């Protein structure tokens, strides 16, 4: 469905952030994109959704196709119309608009007649938003703002949602809730999801396929269930080291084998 083919992204004409990154997302899947800080995960999502320009970034090489159509030269607005919607990092709700106005803004690309039914659909999934429909979004709790950000995505009836760290800054209970929402979106709304996460454990449990990024490249990929069993992933992303006796461990860290 989505094909990112060997792209390079440069910020400010000099900083090369993505160095030939490729990935592929099948229709109907949840695909996780993992990696440490600064690996280029958010940049990858922005390259797909066309949001690099405000950050002074540019795709200098490679191409991105969505449903067989090239989108790497398109405007952000056209990309949303073609069915890709990004839920940005840090929620980014419109703070001085009410909940309902936020939802209406999310439906900008939709026909006016469908807005009402879409709002009802969002309220059906998130009853808490309905209770607060006239409240100013900036005063809501982090979890509610994340629900609003996801609800805003639902308003556009996208075929594919790009989620940038939906669990950022939320309590473990809320993280669980957000992931169950992601699952629900995938199963009930048939939305394909590309998920960027720091919380590798949750992301691998919720996804079908996973990519691991480092320094602007994909270094490892595979079905999420296999990645979860990979020793390197366990050590560096999941923090599971098994019953290791520290007395016997040598005083150097395990080497990442994919770097050789």
């Amino acid at each position: 469905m989505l094909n990112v083919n060997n792209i390079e992204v440069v910020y400010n004409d000099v900083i090369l952030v993505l160095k030939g990154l490729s990935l592929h997302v099948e229709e109907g899947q949840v695909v996780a994109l993992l990696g440490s800080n600064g690996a280029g995960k958010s940049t990858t999502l922005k390259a797909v959704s066309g949001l690099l320009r405000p950050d002074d970034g540019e795709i200098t090489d490679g191409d991105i196709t969505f449903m067989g159509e090239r989108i790497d030269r398109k405007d952000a607005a056209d990309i949303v119309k073609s069915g890709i919607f990004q839920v940005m990092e840090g929620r980014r709700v419109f703070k001085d608009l009410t909940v309902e106005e936020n939802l209406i803004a999310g439906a900008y690309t939709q026909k006016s007649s469908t807005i009402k039914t879409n709002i009802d659909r969002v309220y059906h999934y998130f009853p808490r938003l309905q209770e607060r429909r006239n409240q100013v979004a900036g005063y809501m709790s982090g979890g509610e703002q994340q629900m609003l950000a996801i609800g805003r995505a639902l308003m556009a009836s996208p075929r594919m949602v790009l989620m940038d760290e939906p669990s950022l800054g939320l309590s473990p209970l809320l993280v669980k809730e957000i992931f169950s929402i992601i699952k629900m979106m995938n199963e009930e709304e048939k939305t394909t999801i590309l998920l960027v996460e720091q919380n590798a454990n949750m992301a691998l449990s919720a996804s079908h396929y996973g990519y691991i990024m480092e320094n602007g490249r994909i270094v490892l990929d595979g079905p999420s269930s296999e990645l979860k069993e990979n020793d390197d992933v366990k050590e560096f992303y999941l923090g599971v080291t098994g019953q290791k006796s520290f007395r016997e461990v040598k005083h150097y860290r395990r080497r990442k084998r994919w770097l050789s």
Partner: protein
Amino acid sequence: MELFFQLVITGIVIGSIYALLALGFTLIYKATDVVNFAQGELLLVGAYICLHTTVTYNVPFIAAFFLTLVFTFLMGFCIEKIFLRRMIGEPIISIIMLTIGLSSVLRAIVTIIWGTDTLTFPEVFSQAPIVVFGLSISQVYIYSIFAVAIFLGLFTIFFKKSKVGVAMRAVASDQQAALSMGIDVKRIFALSWAIAAVVSAVGGIFLANINGVNTSLSHFGLKVFPVVILGGLDSIIGAIVGGLIIGILENLAGGYIDPLIGGGAKELFPFVIMIVVLMIKPYGLFGTVEVEKV
């Protein structure tokens, strides 16, 4: 006491026109972060266009009024597309200089076409005053208050209820997030200029009916600064309330202080208010200090 009420009513009329101008100013500032020094010239152009269509082509006033709105809408749209689109991302001082330049150019064009003499509308509104509670009020005042109220009401509904209006506020709130939901930010920018030009033209047309038109009408553009500072730079309600307050206070100052000191207080007073507001309440009455989650 009668003088007081007369002054207040004149103040409301002038103030409501300030409110319109300030609405345009706020709209541009909120959506595009541009401080527009050419607001008064947009008013000037609107007033002249309407006058020209009524006088030269004998178009009925109402038709000329709406033609002017269409014309100024397109003009605002083009100004943004031709001049300001290129300035996105440039330093704020360059953009301010551009709008100052724009104001001179627009005023010059108006002078070239229509000259500097004061022109007056043919009698559109009957001269016979209407007497309300013992106060005689000229009809044009009544009409302009109603027209301005209707326009402000329409825009309030537009910003609250319509998809495009909400999108405009979304752009003002967080541009990149707005972009991420497919809102065409460039079009919203152009639209803010278009609407700002339209509301200014409405103000200009009514001012022209009250006082006649000459290029000094553009000085109204400067009064927009005390208004928006008082109301809060980024608040639409603030623009309306600020406009009315400044209009009324200015006229009261003109009526009561001017005779004592021999004139000038009326022109000065709004700016005194502006300085005082800046010192004690820099965000104005309704300006957002920044919504912060606690």
